[in-house]
């Protein structure tokens, strides 16, 4: 039987690659920001799997929460129109 | 006389806010040690004094025995409906033909308080095949996976009546 934690780490690494691929492939900015936030979220869970809960908390708060929020806020202020 | 009657519910609001904050602090810490308890009381007191007008969130609950009984019955009914909702969704998702007939219907609520309406909207979202989409005064627009009737009264009886009877006692 394969060990559980390495398998989960592999799953999350593959998912990170997939999300990063979406972030560079897609042409709408909002989806790219969302995919970058997803990469950050999965990275934070991977920090946790490597037994670093403090780093994981910081990454979740800054990378996934604050950066995504800030990007959307600024994008809404800059664009001003209703299209993507 | 009038100032006294205005002051009384405000003190009660502050007491409820203080108790909620302290409860959250104790649950977050998981201990009842003296030092953490003192810090929690201090911080809760400061927040209560500074931000007393901001949170009317928990204070609309009527603290009568009937309201507590209705609250317990409400949560029992709510979890029953939540489990039923999941099994119905599982049946839909697992059947190969996907038997759905979605639509958006309109229902009416009798609840007046904001917290009561919020709880009603949340409950509708978590019950079988329904999702609250918009609240406009007393009207609630609900997206259904399988529409059974588009008539307002019939849809109201089917979707909201079960929760409303409990929430009316709790929040009015």
């Amino acid at each position, binding site marked *: *039987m394969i060990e*559980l*934690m390495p398998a*989960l780490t592999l*799953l999350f690494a593959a*998912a990170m690659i*997939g*999300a990063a*691929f*979406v972030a560079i492939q897609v042409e*709408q900015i*909002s*989806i790219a920001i*969302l*995919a970058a*936030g*997803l990469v950050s*979220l*999965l990275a*934070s*869970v991977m920090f*946790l*799997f490597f*037994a670093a*809960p403090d780093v*994981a*908390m910081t990454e*979740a*708060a800054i990378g*996934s*929460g604050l950066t*995504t*929020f800030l990007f*959307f*806020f600024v*994008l*809404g*202020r800059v664009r001003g*129109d*209703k299209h*993507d | 006389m009038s100032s006294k009657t205005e002051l009384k519910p405000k003190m009660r609001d502050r007491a409820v806010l203080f108790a909620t904050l302290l409860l959250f602090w104790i649950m977050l810490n998981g201990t009842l040690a003296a030092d953490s308890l003192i810090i929690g009381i201090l911080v809760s007191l400061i927040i209560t004094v500074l931000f007393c007008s901001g949170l009317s969130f928990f204070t609309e609950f009527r603290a009568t025995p009937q309201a507590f009984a209705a609250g317990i019955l409400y949560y029992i009914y709510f979890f029953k409906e939540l489990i039923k909702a999941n099994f119905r969704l599982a049946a839909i998702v697992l059947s190969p033909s996907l038997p759905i007939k979605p639509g958006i219907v309109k229902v009416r609520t009798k609840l007046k308080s904001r917290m009561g309406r919020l709880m009603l909207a949340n409950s509708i979202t978590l019950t079988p095949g329904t999702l609250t989409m918009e609240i406009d005064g007393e009207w609630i627009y609900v997206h259904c996976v399988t529409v059974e009737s588009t008539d307002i009264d019939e849809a109201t009886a089917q979707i909201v009546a079960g929760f409303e009877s409990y929430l009316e006692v709790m929040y009015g």
Partner: protein
Amino acid sequence: MVETLIAFAALLTGIAFLFALLRFIKGPSTFDRVIAFDVLTVVSITFIVLSALIEERGIYLDVALVYALLSFLGVIAIARYLEGRF
């Protein structure tokens, strides 16, 4: 026995994670991706709780609490942006 059950739960959750990820990659509109993002966050909370069980460290649950907070704030911010109200 309990370890086997935890591993089985992790396997089922992993499949759910894959489905949500596929929806995120495919999803025709932005809203499909947002709901997939929300589901992925909740599934990540589940993974964090499971890893706390496996490693027997209660401090991991604090990270899960931060996640529960952040997913709500993030989805509200994105919805406000998509309504055009920033």
